[in-house]
């Protein structure tokens, strides 16, 4: 009896049961026959669309392209964010300037910048990367800067006391000490840019026959291959869950949790 209760109290098992229930409802709705295959395809055809698009390499190609874009944007965003944060750390004047700029741009959704990006960079990769970089740098700057400011004075002095100076003090004391904040910045930057990417791709379409997952969804809808649209959505959800709940969670477990440095949330 006890094991039966434990079984249902296990969080993961509960979640699996919820998901199965949702899928069952879906399938029941489809089986009523009230909805066209174009609106609500049944699970089997979504499944086979998924398998088929993976087997043909189509899904892989588009996923890889999405990652290629986001990887580029992350690279540029991280470098920019760290340069700007470093400048802000050096001079209080630049710090105030940075704070003002961050306050203005941080609440602005990347997709809202699409028309401007189109005017400035034309249709294609550059515009998407521009939008992704926008959605990456502000949360990263905000969190890194807060993190650097919250570095314990004692730890900094211990660092200087044992003989650390300049860049070595930054990399050996300030960065690890601010790491919980930097990691939070990365999490927000990732989820912002991932959402912006899918949205931007749909509006831009692709240049030269290439496109990411957002483009794939758009294309499949155009050809009324609804099962493929849901298959692509499934992949997007899967990537989101994997990165946020597995990759970041694992990094967190190995670093801030292990070090007892979890940021206490105010609320």
């Amino acid at each position, binding site marked *: 009896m006890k094991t039966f209760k434990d079984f249902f109290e296990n969080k993961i098992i509960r979640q699996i049961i919820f998901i199965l229930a949702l899928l069952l409802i879906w399938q029941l709705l489809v089986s009523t026959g009230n909805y066209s295959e174009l609106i609500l395809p049944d699970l089997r055809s979504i499944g086979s669309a998924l398998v088929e698009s993976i087997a043909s390499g189509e899904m892989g190609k588009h996923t890889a392209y999405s990652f290629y874009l986001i990887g580029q944007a992350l690279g540029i965003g991280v470098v920019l964010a760290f340069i700007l944060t470093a400048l802000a750390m050096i001079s209080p004047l630049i710090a105030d300037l940075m704070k003002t700029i961050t306050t203005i741009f941080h609440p602005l959704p990347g997709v809202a910048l699409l028309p401007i990006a189109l005017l400035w960079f034309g249709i294609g990769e550059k515009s998407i990367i521009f939008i992704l970089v926008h959605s990456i740098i502000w949360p990263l700057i905000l969190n890194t800067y807060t993190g650097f400011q919250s570095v314990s004075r004692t730890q900094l002095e211990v660092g200087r*006391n044992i003989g650390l100076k300049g860049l070595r003090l930054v990399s050996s004391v300030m960065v690890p000490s601010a790491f919980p904040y930097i990691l939070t910045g990365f999490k927000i930057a990732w989820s912002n840019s991932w959402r912006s990417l899918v949205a931007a791709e749909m509006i831009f379409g692709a240049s030269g026959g290439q496109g990411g997952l957002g483009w794939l969804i758009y294309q499949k809808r155009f050809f009324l291959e609804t099962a493929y649209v849901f298959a692509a959505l499934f992949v997007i959800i899967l990537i989101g869950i994997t990165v946020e709940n597995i990759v970041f969670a694992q990094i967190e477990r190995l670093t801030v949790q292990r070090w007892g440095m979890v940021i206490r949330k105010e609320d």
Partner: protein
Amino acid sequence: MADKVAVKNLFVKFEGEQGNVQALENINFSVKEGEFLTILGPSGCGKSTLIRAIAGFQSPEKGNITLGKKEVTEPGPDRIMVFQEFDQLFPWRTVIDNITYALKVSGVKKEEREERAMHYLEMVNLHDFARAFPHQLSGGMKQRAAIARSLALNPEILLMDEPFGSLDAQTRSILQSELVRIWQKVGSTIIFITHNIQEAILLGDRVMVMSPAPGKIKDIIKVDIKRPRLPETPEFMKLWHQLYGLLETKRFGENGAEKNMLPGKD
């Protein structure tokens, strides 16, 4: 024996929002090699400022501090500070890594680091927790680890800024006697800040009493009591009352009027 640290005509001024504050005025004293000096004073007497100036974190307005023959201008591993704060260990490193990393920065050879770290961890009875992370330790254990790290670096002088100030009474008294034992064994030179009269007498060869606003030396008193010292003995109590008297006049100013005290953590 030779002077290890000499402080001459030291003045320190803070430029704060409420105007300039004279934190230290005309401080003169020296510490001999192997000596244990305790600095006793009420909050705001500038004792923390003084030890921070010796560590090189606070630059003087006038006067100078010499360590051996060198003048102190910046922080360095020849003067290692033990802080009151429990977060002085790097939380992302294990206890032993905190020590070996400090040794690495100061240029100790790789083969030597681990052994030396372990030696000092054993000295402070923390060898069983070498692989633990700081957040898994109690306050007292963190301070032990910080002391082990300081000793391992083999500094010319140990600067201790109320390291036991945040501990409960029992842990505090255990660490006090262990510190004396370690000091007698290693023979380091120590400056130890405290606002606790009993602690000042228990530990120091001499007690330097400071008075606030501006921070000055009131008196330096030699402690002629054989170790281990017991607070119940008449000579201990006599000295306690003498020091208490010295502090009392300062707390309320020379004429009994309360004086402005410096804001600050000491």
